[in-house]
């Protein structure tokens, strides 16, 4: 069933118009009738009162001289008043002197009070008849109220007539409403329907009037113009993006917030061959090298879930079936509310670079292996030279002349230095070979081992070496010991006349542990802060401080191997503090970690 809400506006207006008109007319009619009834009553009251007074006055003589005929004549004057039902003149003793009753109505009972009484049947007027101030009789008048009903009927029919006429007029006007209200609205409805169906924001509604409807149409059109211009901007932006994407050497793609790839630039076609729909959505997965796929999917899903940038190196299959290394990156684009609206990404062919890197890495590894093996194998002959030149010098000293002894001294010293150098070189190359650390290592245990191996030097220098609480770390035990040993060893070595005081501590800082090795030694001039970590950099060519100067380079190599860094803060003559960081957590799947063991 159609309710009022659903009928067309035109009909609503007609109905509302007519309802208002009817209500107004009815109210006005009712008001008029009520007022008129009231006024008419008052008028009737006055009218009947004066009528009664006149009759009464005219009846004085008839009463005084007891003349019913004259009285009847006087009453007969009421003939002109058709609504008089009866009129009677009573003598003072209550008997009737004269009666007028054109329709045979009875006389109202005599009432000695002067009054006008309205009742259902009509109006009863009682009027005393006075002569020179004396009551000589009573006039009773009975008046019918049919007049009021007649008047109401008259008004009612007038109102009804006006109502009918105004309804007809409203109906006639409603056709005018079409041009005033309905047509402008129809214009708006037509225009908005056209826009929503065709998406053409160039559509405009026609303005038919200068009133509010006209303003509405203007605003609507202005709104459409605004949307049109934004739509154009959007199209331009899209074209610009497309042009940029198409003209890039990289492979560009976009994806929905759920990770479905929905755009790919021309470079993808050139690479993967025609038929981009094969790559769209998640189709790209079949172009990824099977070895890279699992990790690739894991990382992509992780990015989609967390919104974190995607970054991965993987191999894509070219149209000719050959895989090429690509570096793929994708970033989430967010709307004003921070919600991901799309992903935009690129894949760069890094195949040549990757191959070069690989070759370089292999060469580096080979070199490293060579350096390790060489230094290892060199130890024996060098030791033989060093030890036996010493033995010769001890046992056959007397057989040599001064020059021979000097030469043997050179040989001995050279052998000794060579042995130290090779030893340090070995340590340095070993530092570059990270071990896979499966379980965390208790660094306080490593600290104890270090003290044990440095026991003699500590005793000699009468040093105090202490430590605070030390954490468990994902660093190879041997590597950590190398670092501790070098740093503590340096602190013992570069001491002043005071007994060395060395303290090792560690604090958590972000994702890292930061270790500190503090001493009260000779300190380091700030200008050498960086230099000291270089290979074979010795600041002290003093006999007091022996060594090859490779210790800190080894430390740096170890620390950096694990993704940390090492630095020093120092005040010359007061002491130095060496800091190094290592990650708190295991570094998963570092392909550079190589197990190495040489007998």
């Amino acid at each position, binding site marked *: 069933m159609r309710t009022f809400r659903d009928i067309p506006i035109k009909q609503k207006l007609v109905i509302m118009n007519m309802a208002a008109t009817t209500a107004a007319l009815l109210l006005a009619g009712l008001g008029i009738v009520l007022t008129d009834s009231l006024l008419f009553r008052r008028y009737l009251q006055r009218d009947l009162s004066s009528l009664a007074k006149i009759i009464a006055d*005219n009846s*004085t*003589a*008839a009463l*005084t*001289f*007891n*003349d019913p005929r*004259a009285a009847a*004549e*006087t009453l007969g004057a009421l003939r002109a008043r058709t609504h008089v039902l009866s009129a009677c003149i009573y003598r*003072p*003793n209550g008997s009737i002197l004269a009666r007028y009753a054109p329709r045979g109505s009875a006389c109202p009972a005599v009432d000695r009070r002067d009054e006008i009484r309205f009742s259902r049947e009509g109006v009863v007027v009682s009027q005393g008849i006075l*002569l*020179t101030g*004396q*009551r*000589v009789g009573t006039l009773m008048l009975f008046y019918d109220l049919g007049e009021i009903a007649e008047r109401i009927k008259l008004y009612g029919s007038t109102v009804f007539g006006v109502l009918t006429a105004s309804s007809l007029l409203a109906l006639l006007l409603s056709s005018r409403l079409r041009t005033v209200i309905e047509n402008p609205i129809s214009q708006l409805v037509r225009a908005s329907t056209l826009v929503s169906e065709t998406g053409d924001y160039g559509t405009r509604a026609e303005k038919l009037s200068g009133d509010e409807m006209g303003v509405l149409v203007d605003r609507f059109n202005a709104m459409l113009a605004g949307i049109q211009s934004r739509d154009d901007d959007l199209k331009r932006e899209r074209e610009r993006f497309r042009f940029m994407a198409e003209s890039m050497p990289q492979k560009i793609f976009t994806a929905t917030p759920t990770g479905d790839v929905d755009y790919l630039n021309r470079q993808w076609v050139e690479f993967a061959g025609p038929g981009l729909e094969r790559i769209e959505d998640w189709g790209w997965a079949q172009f990824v090298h099977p070895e890279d796929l699992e990790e690739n999917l894991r990382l992509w899903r992780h990015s989609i879930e967390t919104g974190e940038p995607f970054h991965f190196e993987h191999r894509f299959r070219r149209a000719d079936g050959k895989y090429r290394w690509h570096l793929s990156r994708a970033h989430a684009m967010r709307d004003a509310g921070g919600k991901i609206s799309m992903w935009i990404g690129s894949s760069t062919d890094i195949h040549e670079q990757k191959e070069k890197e690989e070759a370089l890495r292999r060469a580096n590894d080979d070199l490293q292996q060579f350096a390790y093996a060489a230094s290892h194998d060199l130890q024996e002959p060098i030791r033989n030279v060093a030890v036996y030149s010493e033995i010769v010098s001890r046992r056959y000293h007397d057989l040599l002349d001064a020059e021979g002894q000097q030469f043997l001294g050179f040989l001995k010293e050279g052998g000794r230095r060579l042995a130290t150098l090779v030893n340090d070189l070995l340590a340095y190359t070993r530092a570059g070979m990270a071990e896979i650390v499966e379980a965390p290592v208790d660094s306080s245990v490593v600290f104890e081992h270090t003290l044990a191996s440095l026991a003699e030097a500590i005793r000699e220098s009468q040093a105090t070496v202490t430590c605070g609480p030390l954490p468990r770390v994902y660093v190879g035990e041997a590597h950590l010991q190398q670092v501790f040993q070098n740093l503590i060893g340096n602190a013992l070595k570069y001491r002043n006349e005071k007994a060395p005081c060395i303290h090792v501590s560690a604090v958590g800082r972000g994702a890292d542990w930061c270790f500190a090795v503090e001493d009260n030694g000779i300190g380091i001039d700030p200008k050498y802060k960086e230099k000291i970590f270089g290979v074979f950099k010795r600041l002290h060519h003093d006999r007091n401080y022996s060594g090859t100067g490779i210790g800190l380079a080894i430390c740096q190599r170890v620390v950096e191997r694990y993704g940390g860094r090492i630095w020093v803060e120092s005040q010359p003559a007061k002491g130095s503090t060496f800091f190094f960081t290592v990650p708190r957590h295991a570094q998963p799947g570092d392909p550079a970690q190589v197990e190495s063991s040489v007998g």
Partner: protein
Amino acid sequence: MPSRAAPEQISEYDVKAAFLMNFAKFVEWPSTAFASSGSPIAICILGKDPFGRAMDDVVEGETVNGRKVTVQRMTDPPAPKTCQMVFAAGAGKETAKALSGLGRGVLTVGEGENFVRDGGIIGFVIENRRVRFDINQPAAVAAGLTLSSKLLSVARAVEK
């Protein structure tokens, strides 16, 4: 109150007494008809008095237009300004003539149909055993009296 107005069964002269009293209420006398502004309206009974006490009872306590109403009995026609109404019982021609000679300011009332014809102003008649009266309007005018139209309307006959 005119509760003493004569009912049908009471005597003719009781009615006539009441009528006389009531005539005073429907007639206007010129001021010259009175000796002074405070003078009463005097109803004079000339000759034979047929009322007995009735006339005195009727005027007892009555005032008309601020003037008291009194009753006087006399045998001779009154002097001017002493009587405003003169009633002569018994309808004789000579009586009527004598009364009309009383001049201005006197309402003359007599009995019989001939009274008004003979120059009297109001004449009582008996019709259907009811007391009624005729009026001689020119005589009233000549006497300087104004008779209320109401009075005229209840008269049996009015001479013009």
